[in-house]
């Protein structure tokens, strides 16, 4: 027995091995026991349910005779058994009855030893359909009586179904009933029967008790003793004493049964004394036990069985009555003390009353245990009394349990484990282990109890059993769960780390798995195995993890595991086990839609966006509720019909690759179509992002509750609220009605460039490489790839902050055509053409200013006769470009970036006020084309005009031509610098629109000034219209060619220019140049001979004729000017640098050569007229100078205001007059 237990305590090997080893062992042991024991002579079947108070009961066997339906028999049996206690009318004593429906005759043979083991009554139940059957039935009844014949006091036969003549006859020992349902007086019959038993019992008691001391007392003995006493001297004193002692003990038993507790105690005491003196240990033990039983009955009227709750109240009541009855029965007896010495050695006094003890005869609770110990130690001396010993142990344990002395009880139980009962059947073993388990449970040793229950379970499936009882095994194993502090609800394990005795718990789970599989319930084993894997993961070794998962996969291949609750036949519910640790999820995060699909709320439609949670706009009290955090609504929105994502950070705790299938989202709130994913996580992976996707089908608030997985064939729904270790930033998000979806494609290649200030995410971006000044067309195709109509489209652009100065509009487009095609049905597309125009600063930088200063050209200086010649003179010598630094400076590629935003909306989402943004980043690398290294002005021959001199530098590697409006092309080789002169009319900046007064007041004057300059520069530039063309490629420079987009190579074959563009002077012009280009506010008009004259106009006149000269001043300035005095100085230019001012002989003035102009008020004009007379022919120039005296006035005004033309007058020979 103990071997078996030890076997079960071993671990490690699979269960099958364990059982087969057990088998081997069991056989060996069985052989051993066979040799040692004479099996039939001992009582082999212990009654584990016995308790101390059973000693006062009489045993009645109730058995079916012939064919009796089992359920009917047990119904009758129950009714019979309800008569457990009968109060005897005359004697006021109570008789207790123990009913058994099965009792071994071998046990009955121990009836003399302990009378409660003796079958004294027999009730047979039989069915008898007809009178014919009656004799046969009757015979059977008699033969059954024979079995217990020797001990029976009385018997009854209950016949069901028989009617008629036979049934009419009145018999005391037979009762007839027409049917099982119609037997109202069964209880009454049983009571009568019990009373008759009592009469016999009482007579026997009296008979035994009154045996004369002189009579020969028979020796009572137990079955195995019989042959020991053969041939023994029956006359010896020793033998006689033995007989007396045994008889006393027997009488004690009878007294106890007959309800005479005090008498019983006395008899027992005497028996103990007698038997002790003759060392009759077996019977001494029995006497002691009897003493204990009687004392227990006295002390614990509530009983010690603990289980028979129905019996308790009546018993307690009956006990009290019995005690009372005993007292009444022997009034005054209590005070008489027994003097052991008074007992005569050779006989039992007939009158027990004289020997009656008082209540003190009864043992104290402590003594009861001592005596039990003694009794058991005596029983232990006899191998064949194993059952008696075992039962005594059980009884003692029950008493101790009532006394709450667990430690001592455990000692008794420990002893009981070692009691060898010989060869036990498997069933008996199971029973024994179960009862041990129960008893341990009774004394509060739950672990020990679980241990024995588990051994019992294993015994159910021992290989020696032809049909292993896996069901029973499983059931018993389930009962051990509390003992191992194991619950099968995975929720109990979700709180932090598991704290338990993992080694034993795991073993138990393994056994549950195995048992359920053998039971033929694979679903159950899958559930248990899942539970094992989920809850014990931390304790499994790598090898075990592999094994467990392998077997789980084997099981699930036959029976996939799911999330349903498994209900066992006995009502136990097995909660589903979600694999929240396979893989382990660390965080769950709902992802916003990609930037291009993100919905935005229309700004104008406020109100419904405002949360109206609280009437207060602001409250310092923040409701800090951790639980609410999960339910917190997330800021962004999802869109109905669009794929939405949730990112989980997972990791695989297994030492092998983990395949997770059908991983999807569990949601509530709106209709959601989850698109499951399958993933494979490498062994012991670190955190691994997994994105689960799905499409909301309706609008509303969606809550992500958890996720769904299928691992090893087990599907599980893991709810986030059950996983405290998962970090999440909220699970609820709003789903807005569907919006259209646009796809953008462009004619230009996509760029990998992220725009430099990457603060914004962009849907897409394009990049292009252009020369400064070049224009590029970009065709954007927008296709509606959603399911909703596109109803509105807005396009805006924003140039990213750039250090470069940009002139003109970078991106321009015309939306009209595109908008006219709206609404755009799904699948349709619309195109939009965008012009990319890059015009950065064309100035050469710092060098420019210096050059200008060097030159020192002053507008107030004398007119240079032939400026054009100078212009064409190459400037390369003066400005050598050999230095590397300057070269790199020019070749520096600049970038320009802008973001185009397409705002669109439509469908139900538009009604709700949502729109979407599509952004396109435009990235342009700008290669420098031409630079204006210097700029200056030269007065033109006309005062209203002027020459703008630009030093143009070709910074490309290619030959290019530069042309301005009305000018010839200027060919520039790579890195060549040439001067170009453009004749321009002076500008009247006053015609520019004035900034309105409001703006002027609020803006920085400096800014205002800049703006003004800018406008002026723009005006100038637009009239210049300088363009450049690259006409050929220098293929030799490989490095540069690579950067040129392919498009240009294609063009290279045709004669077209490879690139063309504008060049803007806007950035080049400085204040000084602008001033020169400005039309002076004082406008001087000189009229010669009635003909307006300017520098380049040669006025004709005739020698000798008076030439009228008229000077007109128009004041466009804001103040009054003047008065001025003008002097006309004539001179002759010999074109060799010599100017002859000595012309008094050639030119004469009619009147004064000085003109006076009075003060001229704004917008007014003043005219002064003079006349000249040329005396000789020739080319004359007239220089109109201000008189020195007026200089004081003139100094206040800028010199450019006094740009009076110099006149060129050709005096011709007058036609010869007839007279001259």
């Amino acid at each position, binding site marked *: 027995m*103990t071997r078996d237990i*030890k076997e079960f*305590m*071993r*671990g*490690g090997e699979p269960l099958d091995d364990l059982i087969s080893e057990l088998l081997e062992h069991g056989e060996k042991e069985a052989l051993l026991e066979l040799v040692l024991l004479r099996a039939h002579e001992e009582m082999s079947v212990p009654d584990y349910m016995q308790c101390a108070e059973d000693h006062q009961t009489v045993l009645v066997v109730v058995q079916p005779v012939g064919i009796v339906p089992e359920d009917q028999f047990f119904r009758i049996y129950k009714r019979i058994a309800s008569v457990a206690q009968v109060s005897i009318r005359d004697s006021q004593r109570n008789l207790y009855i123990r009913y058994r429906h099965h009792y071994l005759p071998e046990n009955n043979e121990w009836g003399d030893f302990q009378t409660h083991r003796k079958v004294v009554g027999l009730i047979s139940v039989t069915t008898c359909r007809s009178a014919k059957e009656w004799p046969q039935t009757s015979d059977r009844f008699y033969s059954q009586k024979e079995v217990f014949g020797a001990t029976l006091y009385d018997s009854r036969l209950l016949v069901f179904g028989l009617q008629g003549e036979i049934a009419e006859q009145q018999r005391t020992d037979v009762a007839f009933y027409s049917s099982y349902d119609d037997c109202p007086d069964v209880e009454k019959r049983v009571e009568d029967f019990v009373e008759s038993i009592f009469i016999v019992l009482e007579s026997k008691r009296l008979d035994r008790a009154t045996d004369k001391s002189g009579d020969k007392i028979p020796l009572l003995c137990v079955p195995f003793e019989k042959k020991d006493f053969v041939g023994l001297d029956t006359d010896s004193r020793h033998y006689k004493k033995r007989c007396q002692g045994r008889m006393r003990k027997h009488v004690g038993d009878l007294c106890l049964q007959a309800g005479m507790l005090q008498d019983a105690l006395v008899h027992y005491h005497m028996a103990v004394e007698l038997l002790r003196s003759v060392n009759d240990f077996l019977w001494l033990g029995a006497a002691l036990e009897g003493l204990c039983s009687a004392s227990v009955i006295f002390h614990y009227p509530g009983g010690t069985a603990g289980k028979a709750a129905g019996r308790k109240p009546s018993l307690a009541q009956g006990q009290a009555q019995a005690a009372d009855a005993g007292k009444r029965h022997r009034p005054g007896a209590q005070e008489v003390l027994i003097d052991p010495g008074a007992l005569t050695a050779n006989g039992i006094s007939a009158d027990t009353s004289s020997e009656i003890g008082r209540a003190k005869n009864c043992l104290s609770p402590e003594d009861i245990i001592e005596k039990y110990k003694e009794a058991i130690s005596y029983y232990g001396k006899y191998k064949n009394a194993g059952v008696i010993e075992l039962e005594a142990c059980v009884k003692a344990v029950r008493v101790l349990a009532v006394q709450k002395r*667990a*430690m001592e009880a*455990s000692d008794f139980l*420990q002893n009981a484990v*070692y009691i060898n009962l010989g060869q036990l059947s498997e069933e008996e073993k199971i029973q024994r282990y179960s009862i041990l388990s129960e008893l*341990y449970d009774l004394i*509060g*040793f*739950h*672990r*020990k109890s679980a*241990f024995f229950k588990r051994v019992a379970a294993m015994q159910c499936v021992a290989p020696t059993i032809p049909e292993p009882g896996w069901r029973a095994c499983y059931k018993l194993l389930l009962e051990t769960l509390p003992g*191992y*502090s194991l619950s099968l609800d995975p929720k109990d394990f979700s709180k932090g780390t598991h*704290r*338990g*005795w*993992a*080694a*034993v718990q795991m*073993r138990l789970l393994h056994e549950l798995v195995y048992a359920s599989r053998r039971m033929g319930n694979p679903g159950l084993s899958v559930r248990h195995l899942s539970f094992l894997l989920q809850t014990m993961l931390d304790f499994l070794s790598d090898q075990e993890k592999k094994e467990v998962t392998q077997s789980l996969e084997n099981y699930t291949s036959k029976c996939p595991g799911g999330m349903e609750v498994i209900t066992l036949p006995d009502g136990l519910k097995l909660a589903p086990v979600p694999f929240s640790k396979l893989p382990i999820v660390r965080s769950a995060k709902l992802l916003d839609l990609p930037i291009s699909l993100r919905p935005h709320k229309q700004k104008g439609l406020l109100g419904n966006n405002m949360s109206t949670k609280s009437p207060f706009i602001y409250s310092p009290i923040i409701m800090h509720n951790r639980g609410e955090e999960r339910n917190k609504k997330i800021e962004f929105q999802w869109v109905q019909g669009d794929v939405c994502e949730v990112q989980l950070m997972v990791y695989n705790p297994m030492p092998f690759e983990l395949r997770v299938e059908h991983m999807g989202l569990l949601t509530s709130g709106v209709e959601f179509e989850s698109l499951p994913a399958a993933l494979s996580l490498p062994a012991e992976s670190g955190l691994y992002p997994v994105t689960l996707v799905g499409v909301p089908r309706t609008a509303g608030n969606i809550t992500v509750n958890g996720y769904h997985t299928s691992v090893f064939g087990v599907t599980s729904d893991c709810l986030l609220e059950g996983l405290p270790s998962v970090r999440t930033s909220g699970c609820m998000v709003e789903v807005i009605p569907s919006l259209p979806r646009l796809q953008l494609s462009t004619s230009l290649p996509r760029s990998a460039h992220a725009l430099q200030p990457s603060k914004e995410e962009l849907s897409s971006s394009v990049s292009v490489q252009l020369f400064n000044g070049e224009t590029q067309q970009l065709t954007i195709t927008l296709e509606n790839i959603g399911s909703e109509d596109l109803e509105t489209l807005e396009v805006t652009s924003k140039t990213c902050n750039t250090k470069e100065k940009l002139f003109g509009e970078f991106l321009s487009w015309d939306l009209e055509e595109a908008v006219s095609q709206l609404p755009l049905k799904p699948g349709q597309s619309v195109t939009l053409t965008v012009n990319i125009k890059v015009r950065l600063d064309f100035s050469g930088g710092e060098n420019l200013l210096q050059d200008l200063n060097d030159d020192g050209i002053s507008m107030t200086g004398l007119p240079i006769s032939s400026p054009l010649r100078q212009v064409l003179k190459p400037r390369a010598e003066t400005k050598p470009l050999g230095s590397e630094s300057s070269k790199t400076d020019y070749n520096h590629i600049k970038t320009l970036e802008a973001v185009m935003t397409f705002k669109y909306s439509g469908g139900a989402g538009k009604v709700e006020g949502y729109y979407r943004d599509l952004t396109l980043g435009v990235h342009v690398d700008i290669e420098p084309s031409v630079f204006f290294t210097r700029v200056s002005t030269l007065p033109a021959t006309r005062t209203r005009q002027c020459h703008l001199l630009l030093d143009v530098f070709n910074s490309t590697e290619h030959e290019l031509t530069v042309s301005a409006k009305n000018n010839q092309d200027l060919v520039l080789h790579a890195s060549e610098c040439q001067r170009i002169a453009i004749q321009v009319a002076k500008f009247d900046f006053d015609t520019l629109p004035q900034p309105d007064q409001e703006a002027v007041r609020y803006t920085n004057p400096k800014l205002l000034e800049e703006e003004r300059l800018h406008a002026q520069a723009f005006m100038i530039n637009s009239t210049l219209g300088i363009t450049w063309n690259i006409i050929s490629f220098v293929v030799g420079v490989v490095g540069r060619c690579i950067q040129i987009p392919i498009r240009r190579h294609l063009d290279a074959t045709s004669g077209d220019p490879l690139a063309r563009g504008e060049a803007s002077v806007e950035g080049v012009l400085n204040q000084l140049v602008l001033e020169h280009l400005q039309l002076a506010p004082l406008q001087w008009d000189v009229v010669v001979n009635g003909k307006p004259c300017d520098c380049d106009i040669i006025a004709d006149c005739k020698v000798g004729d008076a030439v009228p000269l008229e000077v007109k001043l128009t004041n466009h300035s804001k103040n009054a000017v003047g008065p001025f005095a003008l002097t006309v100085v004539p001179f002759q230019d010999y074109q060799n640098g010599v100017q002859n001012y000595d012309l008094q002989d050639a030119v004469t003035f009619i009147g004064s050569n000085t003109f006076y102009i009075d003060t001229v008020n704004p917008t007014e004009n003043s005219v002064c007229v003079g006349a000249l007379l040329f005396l000789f022919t020739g080319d004359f120039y007239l220089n109109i100078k201000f008189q020195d005296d007026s200089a004081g006035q003139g100094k206040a005004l800028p010199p450019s205001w006094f740009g009076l033309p110099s006149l060129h007058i050709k005096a011709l020979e007058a036609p010869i007059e007839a007279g001259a």
Partner: protein
Amino acid sequence: MAVCIAVIAKENYPLYIRSVPIQNELKFHYTVHTSLDVVEEKISAVGKAMADQRELYLGLLYPTEDYKVYGYVTNSKVKFVIVVDSSNTSLRDNEIRSMFRKLHNSFTDVMCNPFYNPGDTIQSKAFDSMVSAMMVQVS
């Protein structure tokens, strides 16, 4: 001398368990596990009497056929269980006591380690070697 030494947490789960015949470890798990019933019983019995001057040493918890199981409870309700071979008669109560004392001292050292989380299984090398010494000594 000892065949199995176990340290059990207040909440009755093992912090440390080591046995000499390694192949049969589970058997000792069961032995120690079931011995907790007795330990609890003893604690509750003594606890009522005088909680302060409680004797930490619980004595023999229960004998099995092959082994004797001894128990010891610290004031913080951490249990020590030592299983010795019952054939080893040289071990007297005093020796067992001193073994427990040693175990307790070593356990205190483990608890003093700032890197040890109370409630975790004991993985201290010092503790391990001390236990090994106690197991090897006689066997």
